[in-house]
């Protein structure tokens, strides 16, 4: 199977800087133990290079979401070290976390859009948070909504958008800080097949424009069609790490 074609989205939006180190993200023996009956991750180690497209696969409960939550410091691991651009994010003081989160754009299965803000406001909001000027916000939000193909729906509230459109808004919000990494946790979990492929094509497009993408999913078809690197998690440990990889779980 050939690679998925990237869609005809406009490409005039610049993403990410070209980093000079080989490993952008490094997990070193990372464990997350909720309690003795619930171990999410056991000594997980792997690296992600700049501009890679990595899929993290595994059954529900294999630890995919936990892995991504650790990267954006939504949760703390019980052991190990996590590096982002050579910085140990576990040693990062709480007041620097906002800056980390502006460099790592996160996309969630349940979109996490604010229901009382329009598509435009939801994206603009992520820039207001960073204290950007009104002119900058107008310019960048317009471009990023254009990129995800929602320019004509910018004044719609999330309840007026389809699932796929909501996820596009969420991706726009994640992209608006021009992060070097996009972390997507089951972004297509709530979508029908057509919308699913739209979102995946959008992520490929973003990756081709220079942004690292880490995609967590349990969708076999997507993984096998992508033909990119696959990290498989089983019972909290990395069972395979192949490039290009396929969806193989024992």
């Amino acid at each position, binding site marked *: 199977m050939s690679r998925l074609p990237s869609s005809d989205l406009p490409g005039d939006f610049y993403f990410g800087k070209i980093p000079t180190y080989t490993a952008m993200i490094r997990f070193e023996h990372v464990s997350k133990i909720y309690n003795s009956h619930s171990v999410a991750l056991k000594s997980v180690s792997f690296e992600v290079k700049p501009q890679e497209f990595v899929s993290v696969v595994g059954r529900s409960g294999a630890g995919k979401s936990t892995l991504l939550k650790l990267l954006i410091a939504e949760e703390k691991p019980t052991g190990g070290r996590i590096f982002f651009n050579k910085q140990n994010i576990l040693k990062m003081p709480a*007041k620097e976390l*906002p800056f980390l*989160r*502006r460099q790592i754009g996160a996309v969630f299965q349940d979109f*996490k859009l*604010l229901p009382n803000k329009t598509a435009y406001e939801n994206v603009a909001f992520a820039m207001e948070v960073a204290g950007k000027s009104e002119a900058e916000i107008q310019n960048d939000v317009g471009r990023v909504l254009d990129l995800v193909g929602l320019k004509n729906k910018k004044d719609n509230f999330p309840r007026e958008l389809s699932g796929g459109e909501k996820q596009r808004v969420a991706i726009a*919000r994640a992209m608006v800080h021009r992060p070097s990494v996009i972390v997507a946790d089951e972004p297509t979990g709530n979508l029908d097949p057509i919308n699913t492929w739209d979102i995946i094509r959008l992520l490929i497009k973003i990756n081709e424009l220079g942004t690292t993408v880490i995609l967590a999913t349990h969708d076999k078809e997507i993984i096998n069609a992508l033909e990119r690197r696959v990290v498989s998690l089983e019972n909290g440990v990395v069972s395979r790490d192949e490039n290009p990889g396929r969806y193989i779980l024992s």
Partner: protein
Amino acid sequence: MLNFWRNGWLSTATVLIMTVTLVVWTSIFLLNVVLTSVLDVLVEKVDISVYFNLGAKEMDILALKSKLEGMGEVNSVEYISAEQALPIFKKRHADNDIFIKSLQEIGINPLEASLNILAKNLSQYPAITAFLNQDQYKGIITNITYTENKDAIDRLSNIIKVLRESGVAASLILAFIAFLVAFNTVRLAIYSAREEITVMKLVGASNWFVRGPFIVEGVLHGVVASIISFMIVIPGIGFLGPKLFDFLPNINLVSYIGDNFWPLLLFQTLGGIILGVFSSWVAVRKYLKV
């Protein structure tokens, strides 16, 4: 700021609960003012009198008076000479023929000079009495009324003490309950915004960026609640004050409010702001840990 209007219903509920809390606080405070003045009036009604025999020299009595005035326990001492005592006695018993006739019968002034002593505190009368019971004064003093009224004074002293203490305790408990109600209302309001807070944090908002609007909202709620509360309390006093005045002529709540309008308004507004800001602060903190 926008949220204050967007969440209209929630804001209204929060403001109303905070208003009730402030009204309760102010009422408790005013009740304490009333209770304190009632008790003060009662305490002022209690004094002791020391009577001197007819042979006591005025010089000695005045010397004792100034000594008493030098004591820390004594609030005031009033000297009533035998001559002054007579018209007072006549006036007090003007409608009692037997007393007036007896006085005329005797022909001379049978009344003794006396000192009326007002202590600063009810519990200090025994000490003052002990001072007067010293041997050096035995020769001139015939009678100290404390000895006669001891039981009554002690009992009153106890009652006042219990009333003061239980008044303070009840006020503190009530004020705390009112605080808890308001605090939990604010927490509920912020609970409804918890997802918004999480999203803000996940897209890279600093704690202050998230907290700021809630604090501003807390201030707004506090100020509005205090204004409404004042619009309830002031007419309330206007209505109840005169009725209370008929009962207890020493207590004029209307003029008390008139004298203390600005401090009361200031404290109520401060109370509202502190209540709103504190509740918001604590409630938001819980959801900032993302």
